[in-house]
Each structure stands twice: as C-alpha cells, then as structure tokens.
C-alpha cells in the first residue's frame, strides 16, 4: 500500500523538482518544490500507470522552528490499486505562504483547502472561494499554528505556588529530555516478576 514505485517515476519525470523522498512507517512520502506542486499532482492524477485519481486529505504542519518551514501535505490515492502517496510541499517561513490550489483537479479539495487556510493560514492560489471553514469569522489567527494560545488557567496550590500548564507540558515534548530523561526503557539487568522483560527482544528506534 505504498507508492514507492511512483517516487522513482516522479524523479524520472521531474528531476530536481522532487526534493527528497522517504519511507516512513511503510508510507511513501515525497517532498516536491512549491512552484511545481500543482503540475506534479496533475501528472500523478493523469499519467497512465500512476492514476492517483482520489484525493484523501490535505493538511499542513507547523514545525515551530525557524529552520523548518511549514509543510503542506497531500495524501493522494490510486483507487484501482488502493495505493497511497503522501506528497509534501515545504514552504519557506519568510516567504508568503502560498501554494496553487488543486480544486481544478479534485473538487473534493474545496473544503480541505479552506480548512487548511483556516487552521494554518496557508493561501491556496486559484481557489474559487477561499474563506474560513470552521472557526468564527471574527477570530484572528490560525489555531493549528504552534504559537496559537490554548487559553488555559494556571493551577493555584495552597502554598501560593502556581502550576503553569504550558510550562509543565514543555517537559513532555520531544525537544526536552522529559522530567527525568526517561524514555521508556528498563535498567539493564532488571527483570519483571511476571517473567517478560519490559520491551526485551524488540528493536525500537
């Protein structure tokens, strides 16, 4: 169920516009140049042998990092062979967040692009009706950006100490070693009374 063969075909057809590709958890992912994303998606849809005629989803990811840009993800599917390909378009953070709309390829992209525009503020050029989809019209900002505030209340303890939820959670992200640096392993030589060693014999990253 992965479109790894299509990646090779894409490279042959578009060369440098295919920036990189990867196989993540069994899914083929390919990064393409923002300027040619529409052309590449149209090629994937219309070329015999590729036939990615079904658009599953459009979304975007904010990597909260000045180095890592915002990424727009398209999940396309060849219905006949139930094969998926994830096409990603990396947008530079300082450049305007614009990609070409694919509504003229798949009508189903209409609401998906509106949702992405609403949630992450990415503009889809050529969209016939690019308005917010889910949030109220008078809401400023894009909720799925990582800098959008959650609006929580800090917890006050008896001794006048505050627990700030955001600061507490900061210890749980992948950028932080955690409260104690523990990442799920057992100390060497430690056995469980139930017999099975925790995670013994499995190779995980």
């Amino acid at each position, binding site marked *: 169920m992965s479109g790894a063969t299509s990646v090779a075909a894409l490279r042959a057809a578009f060369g440098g516009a295919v920036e990189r590709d990867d196989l993540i958890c069994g899914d083929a992912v390919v990064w393409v140049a923002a300027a040619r994303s529409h052309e590449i998606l149209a090629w994937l849809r219309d070329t015999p042998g590729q036939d990615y005629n079904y658009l*599953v989803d459009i979304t975007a990811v904010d990597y909260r990092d000045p180095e890592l840009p915002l990424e727009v993800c398209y999940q396309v599917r060849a219905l006949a062979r139930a094969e998926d390909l994830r096409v990603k378009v990396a947008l530079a953070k300082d450049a305007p967040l614009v990609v070409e709309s694919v509504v003229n390829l798949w009508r189903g992209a209409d609401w998906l692009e509106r949702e992405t525009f609403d949630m992450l503020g990415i503009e889809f050029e050529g969209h016939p009706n690019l308005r*917010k989809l889910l949030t*109220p019209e008078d809401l400023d900002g894009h909720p799925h950006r990582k800098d959008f505030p959650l609006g929580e209340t800090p917890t006050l303890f008896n001794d006048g100490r505050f627990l700030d939820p955001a600061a507490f959670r900061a210890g749980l992200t992948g950028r932080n070693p955690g409260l104690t640096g523990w990442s*799920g392993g057992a100390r060497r030589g430690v056995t469980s009374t139930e017999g099975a060693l925790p995670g013994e014999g499995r190779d995980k990253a």
Partner: protein
Amino acid sequence: MSVKPVNPPQVEAELPGSFSTRYMRINVGPQHPSTHGVLRLVVDLDGEQIVSLKPQVGYLHTGFEKTMENRTYQQCVTYSNRMDYLHAFAHDLAYVLAVEKLMDARVPVRAQRIRVILTELNRIASHLVFFGTGMLDMGALTPYFYCMREREGLMDIFEAVSGVRMNYGYFRVGGLYQDVPDTFEPMVPKWIDAFPKHTDEYFNLFMANSILKARTQGVAVVTRDMAIDYALTGPSARASGVPLDYRKAAPYSGYEDYVFDVPMREEGDIYARMAVRFEEMLESCKIVRQALDLLEPGPVKDPDRRISLPPRRELENSMEAVIFHFKLVTEGFHPPKGEVYVPTESARGELGYYVISDGGSMPYRVKVKAPSLANLQSLEPSSIGGLFADMVINIASFDPVLGDVDK
C-alpha cells in the same frame, strides 16, 4: 481577515438589484431537526427547485486536534470518540491503530477480536440511527422506534463493557482498558441471533416499501465520476460504484480472518445509499459471529512495559513496576520520531488519524481525516436542480455527524 459574502454569484447576477420575487433564499438550521446536528444550509429556491445550496459548517468546532496535541498519547483516547459520537469505537480504533503502528506495539489476538466485535456492533447501532432518523425526515415516525429498540440492546452491551453508553474510551494503545465482563459473551450472541428476524421486518417496512422507493429512487444521484471527484467515501461511495472498503483493501485489526462481502450499488441515488447500509448491517452481523467463534481467552494488553501499566499485584513487590507505573501515568510513553496514517472504515467512510511524533510523549500533530466532512461536500452538487423536500432526505442519506465534520 476579509470574509467574502456567501451570496452565490449566479443568483446574484439575475437579481435585478432592488426587489425580486423570482428567487427565495431560505436559511435551514443551524438548529433544525432535519440537519442531523448543527449544520446550516443557505438555499436559494426557484419555486420549489434548488438553484444554489451553500452548507455552512463549524458550529461544533471544538479543536479536538489541537487539544490532542497537548495531551499524552493515552489521554487522547478521551477526545477521539467524542468526534463521531454515533460510531465512537471506530474513532478510538483508528487513533490507537495509528499510534500502535508508530510504537510497533503488538496487540494480543483477543484484544483485536473484541475490538472488531465492538466496532462492528457499533456500526450496526450507527446504521440503525441512520435509518431511524432518515425515515423521520420522510415523515415516517414508526421506524425510529423500531430502530431505537434494537439499538438499546447494543447500548446495553457497550455499557456492560465500558461503563458508559456513549464516548466509550475503552480501547487503549496496546490493547483494551480491561477484559470484557463475563456477561459479554452471552449478551452478544443473544442480540445477534434476534437481529436477523428484525431485519426481515425492517426490509418489508423500509426497503420494500413502494412509497419509500418512489420517494428515493433516482433522486439526488451521485455518479461514479462525481463520487471520485468529490472524494466521497464509505457506504455513500459504494452506493455510487466506488468499491473501496479498507476492511478488505488493507485489513487491520484481524479483518483478514473473517469472511464477509462489501455491499455495492451502481445507481448512486438515495435508495442505493440506504440499501448499501442495510446490507452492511447484515455483513457486520456475520463478522461479529465469526469473531465470537474465534474468541479465545488470553491477555488483552501488549505486555510491553513501555506501553501498558504493570499489573496491580506486581506493584506490591517490585520497585521497578512502581517506577514504570508512575512514569507511564505522569509522563506517558515516547514513540520514536515519525509520522503515520492508517486508513480504517467507519460507518461513514474512510477514517484515519495522521499522527506525527517528535519523540515526545504528546503527539506533535494530529489530523483527522473525517469521513463526514468529505461526504458532506457531495450534498451541494447532488441537491442542485432537485426539490427542496428531496434535499432534506438527501442530507440524511449521506449520514453526516457534525461532530465529525467540525472536529
């Protein structure tokens, strides 16, 4: 943020500007029984014929995805089932499958079978609500009571298993919250054996009913090409001849062990969408029967201590177990970096969680591919040109759950 007005251009061009009696604009919803939730439709009518239809969604937007990005992986199960409250087990299953793939968790066979039984029973319950409320939109009051009567038996099973009638939160990453109670195994066959007798009754009441056929056949047709173009999924797409069902295409949770058919229709009208769902209920019964036959005693959680809590008895004599327990509860587990999308088949269509992990104990990004959102887009093209009264049953025929659309 500039927001453009919702006026459809083609109607506006014909309006003389001052006063027109040709077109009438009707606002349906957001609080309206026929919209199956908080859906608003701005409909322009020429007499009784629909000229333009603009669905407005977002009234139930709760920000589940954003909230999940700020909770540990195990806590997210609380949120997933609240999106589609009619087929809640499917949302739980889609979420835990995605995280399990990320973690390389090994779910015991018993847990997989119980997951399938509950998800399929929940699918029947969801389709029963579809029939009950869909008939209600056509003015048939009786089917609602029949359908709710059957659904009640299913709700009792879900309550016995998880303690609640909705928003179960029973599946966990790595398995189940706990094993099913002793009452589960007698309860399910009792319900499953009684159901086919009722479906015969329903078939005569609904599907063979000539009034219903006259009302629904050839109405609001979605052709195969249109279904693919508008990314229609699930039973609604299969009613238009798109044969995709992820229980068959890429079996998950042990679906490859069961023999069942995927009901298909070519017509793409409202009757076809109902017929596919009707047959799906019978297929779900088949799956549940087979899963029950194959159900054997065994563990219901992945024994990996990095995912599941240690058993209670071990906490009394093992310091390591206490530490694991503490760390899993306060901090949760840490999947490796990566991203995953596992498509599953809910009662509404393809449902998948796109989860990105940055190595922390909270998902970095969660995006739900919600089937109701995809299906609701087909409402506009299939309703235009039809009658207003047909649009009302057309909404019901796509079976949207607005919690699933708005997230």
